[in-house]
Structures are given as structure tokens and as C-alpha cells.
């Protein structure tokens, strides 16, 4: 990654996300979400002590162990402030508009307008690749005030012109098509990848390069993206994790080094 100080991809991504999370916001973390969880707990340690997050599957609120565990893991219960049964959470997860300020998701494919696919690559009846499925992604992308996508790979297989299956609506076909589909205001805010940080251009709602990660060239970002990125002027470099951010992450959020091991 070439950042100073040196850090793993998973740590770099968690720090980029954490910076954008606000104090007092409400968030939901899904299953298999190490980077997402690290981002929330890092934000809580640094600038957002009142950030509230809940584990989608397990219902634990603000579990804080100093090390990363699966969000479904019952070990999270003993350090959580609350523990809510899933049936009690369904109304605000699956129904309520803007209960959550944000969700952070991952995907098999993300497209030009920030739509997410974790279902199939290819045709649904005879897929080239069968993914795990939708779970809560539909509700989180449709109903949160905003969402983020974190990708640990950035290539033409992951960033495609149009997703093969929309399981999480972004800006759909761009422009005002999200609103036309009857969805509440929202949509993707940032996509963070090993190559850079991306947002969406006003009006077209097409993915736009916001900053390039250290050591990454514009040509490389263009070559590894399956559609034309919006680029305005010379993109600035992404600010790498500071010493304080990285030390806090390693000492108080991910003491077991899960991010370094899983996402080197």
C-alpha cells in the first residue's frame, strides 16, 4: 500500500471509512464484517464516542472487546450495552425509513451507479458464479440515509458497468431513477477500495474518483475499472492512516490483528 506508516489493506480501508462516520449516528453491521466493525469502533475511539451500532444477526449494541469478533458471535454479548432479539429489530431494519444513518456493505459486484450484487454472476437460472445471497442488503441500501461499500479487490470483475443482479439498490440507472423507483433519499456515499476512494457525481450519479491511494496511478484505476470513471481535474492522493489512527486501531480495536491476517 506504500502508506506511511505501513499498514495492511484491511486497516487502510477501515481508517478511510472511520473518518466519515459521525458522532451520534446510528449504524448496522451485517454478518462477516470485520472491516466495517473496525471502522465503527475506531470512529467511536477517536471522534464519534456516541456512534451507536448494532449487530444485524445477533442484536448486540456497541459490543466493545478491543479485538474483532464476528458480529454473530455470542462472545460479543458480554460486552454489549443491549442485546435485542432479531424479531424485535425487523421493523426498524426492514421497514423504517432512515432509522439508520448508514450501513457499510461489501459485494461481489458494484456498478457505475453504486448498485450492489452478492447473488449471482451471469444469469440467475444458470449462473457463472453463485454468490451467497441478499440477506439484509436490500433494506440497508434502500432505507439507510446513506451507505458505504468496502471492496478488498478492485478489478473489472468487481467494478462492472451494470451488476448482473440488483440485490442492493444504489442510484439504479443514475439520474433520478432511484427516486422514480419510490425509494427514500439516500444511496451510496463512498466506495473504498485498495486503489482509491470514490463518490458519485451530482446529477448523473455516476461513480467519480475522489482520491487515489498512495502509489496508485490514474491509468491503473481506469484500467482496473470496468466502466468510465468520472474524473474531475487531477485527483488528490488519499490521506493514509496517521500514526494515531493506526495505533488506536491496533491497540484498542483489533488487538488480535484480524485485519492484518485476513486482508494483508
Amino acid at each position, binding site marked *: 500500500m506504500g502508506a506511511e506508516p505501513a499498514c495492511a489493506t484491511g486497516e487502510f480501508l477501515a481508517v478511510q471509512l472511520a473518518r466519515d462516520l459521525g458522532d451520534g449516528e446510528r449504524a448496522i453491521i451485517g454478518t462477516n464484517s470485520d472491516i466495517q466493525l473496525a471502522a465503527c469502533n475506531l470512529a467511536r475511539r477517536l471522534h464519534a464516542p456516541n456512534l451507536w451500532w448494532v449487530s444485524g444477526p445477533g442484536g448486540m449494541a456497541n459490543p466493545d472487546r478491543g479485538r474483532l469478533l464476528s458480529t454473530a458471535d*455470542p462472545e460479543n454479548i458480554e460486552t454489549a450495552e443491549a442485546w435485542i432479539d432479531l*424479531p424485535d429489530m*425487523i421493523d426498524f431494519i426492514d421497514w423504517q425509513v432512515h432509522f439508520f444513518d448508514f450501513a457499510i456493505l461489501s459485494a461481489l459486484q458494484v456498478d457505475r451507479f453504486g448498485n450492489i450484487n452478492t447473488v*449471482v454472476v451471469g444469469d440467475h437460472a444458470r449462473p457463472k*458464479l*453463485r454468490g451467497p*445471497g441478499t440477506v439484509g442488503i*436490500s433494506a440497508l441500501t434502500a432505507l439507510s440515509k446513506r451507505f458505504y461499500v468496502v471492496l478488498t479487490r478492485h478489478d473489472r470483475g468487481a467494478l462492472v458497468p451494470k451488476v448482473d443482479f440488483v*440485490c442492493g439498490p444504489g442510484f439504479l440507472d443514475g439520474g433520478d431513477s432511484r427516486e422514480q423507483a*419510490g425509494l427514500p433519499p439516500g444511496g451510496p456515499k463512498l466506495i473504498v477500495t485498495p486503489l482509491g476512494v470514490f463518490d458519485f457525481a451530482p446529477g448523473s450519479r455516476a461513480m467519480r474518483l475522489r482520491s487515489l491511494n498512495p502509489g496508485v496511478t490514474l491509468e491503473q484505476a481506469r484500467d482496473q475499472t470496468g466502466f468510465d470513471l468520472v474524473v474531475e481535474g487531477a485527483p488528490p492522493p488519499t490521506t493514509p492512516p496517521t500514526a494515531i489512527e493506526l495505533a488506536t486501531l491496533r491497540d484498542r480495536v483489533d488487538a488480535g490483528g484480524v485485519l492484518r491476517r485476513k486482508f494483508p
Partner: protein
Amino acid sequence: MTMARTSKLVSLEDAVADVKDGAAVGLGGWIFHSQPMALVRALVRQGAKDLDLVPSPGSIAPDLLIGAGRARSTVCVFISFEQHGLAPHFRRAAERGSIQVHEMDGPGYAGGLRAAICDLPWMPIPDLATDLPKVNPAHYRPLPTAPGERRLLAVQPIRPDVCLLHAQQADEFGNVQFLGAPFFDVMLAQASRRVVVSVDRIVSPETIRRSNHLTKLPYALVDAVVEAPFGAHPTASAAIYRADEAHLREYVEASAKPEGFGAYLERYVSGAGENSAYLDRIGGGRLSELAVSESNVA
């Protein structure tokens, strides 16, 4: 003369004996937590086929039934091996087109269970602008709404013939206690015609009463209870043992080739007819390591 209370405690094999060919089978838990694996292995041995699986977000429970050739269809809310990759048999069967996949999302699954629980013909859910209604029109149907109103879908009831669940403890009467999150298990139980629960230990009615806030499934909602220590293995059971990552890797590796998976089934399913025989094959040393709390692991 006083009548005795009715025990619902049965053997593993008896618990699944009357699952018929073509039955809709609900599977509880969440990915690598509380998958009802001892019951699933017993169901594979029982031989019922053409099953329509209704798994909550899961991993090896649906995947093993698909790999063993027992399922003709499955609901898919989420079937994943997470850090170990994609679910090997589910993935292969879906890519070959040899299993019908009823694609669903969390809201559709929860709404379908609620419709069944409430004896409603359908339950409204918000239209979230996904492709799900396109590939699964049988479960998702657009509802007429006036201009300016929130767009809605009707989801059909999900009513399994039987559901298989795993929890930590119960008394012999079927009062089931959860030491961790119940995930969708309580809804699945309420929606199913028959409810079968394995637990790691049967405890006394006094123990149940002493911590009755843990009883999420009172016996009126339970048809059969089975004592199956480590019955969720290789997935985790809250506060009792963790997931067996090495065994999950072994399963994924064995699933790469038919002969490898045949040997897996022989060793861990067909050739291990009692839960104790299965546990012997996993080994006491391994099981004791899984019972160690993460808090105590450096």
C-alpha cells in the same frame, strides 16, 4: 390419581423419522452459529429426498443436505461459508441448475414467516427496487398502491412442514433455552407445522425456572426435543463451544471432488449413526479445545 407431564424427549433418529419425501424443512441458526447439524446428519441417514429447504441464513446445514442429494429446492436468503469461501455444494448445484433456488432477502423471509405465524394470505413488505421479484414471482408480488404512497410487495407465507433447530438447553418437556441470540429460530418455530429442537444438554425443570428469561421457546411451541451434546458441531453453540474452523476447512476440501465428499459422508454421517460415534470421530481433544472461551485464548 395424578397424571404425569408428557416428556418430549426423543432420540435423534426418532426426531426425524417422519420427515417425508418432498417435505419443506426449515433450518435454524445463523451461518456458523447453531446450525442443527446432528439433526441434519440424522435426516441424511433417514433418507428423505426431494426436500424443499427453508434455511435461515446458513452454511453447512443446507449445504450438506444439498451435497447428499436430498434437496430439490432451497430458499436462499444467504448461504455462505464466509471466510472459507462459497458454500461448495449449494454453489455447484445452483451453477449446474440441478436445484431450484427461491431467491429471497431478509425482509421477504421475515415477512413470509410473519404471514405464516399470523395466518395471513400474505404480508406486505416495502418494495426495495431489487431484482428479487423478477426471479422469484411466486414469493414476491407487487401490491397496488396509490400514487405517492409507499410501494409495497406481498410476500407469500413461509410455512415449513418441520423445522430443525439447535439451542443450548431444555427440559424434557420441551422448554428450550437460548444462551445466545435466537436469530430467526423463534419465528421459524412459530411458522412451522412441527418443531424439532436439539440441545447440548437436558436440564431439570428447576434449572429452567431459575433462569426462565432464557426460555425463548416454551414447550407449547415445541414438538420434540433431542439431547445432542455438540449437536451444532462444526458450527458454534452459544457459550458452550466455538465453531470448528479446521473441520469446516476439511468439509470444504472434501467437497471439491465426489469421491472426497463420499468419504466425508461415510466417515461423519452414514458411518456415524449415533451422535457419540460422530463425536468420537471428531475426537475428544478437538472438542475440548472448542469449549474454551475466546476470552481465554491469547
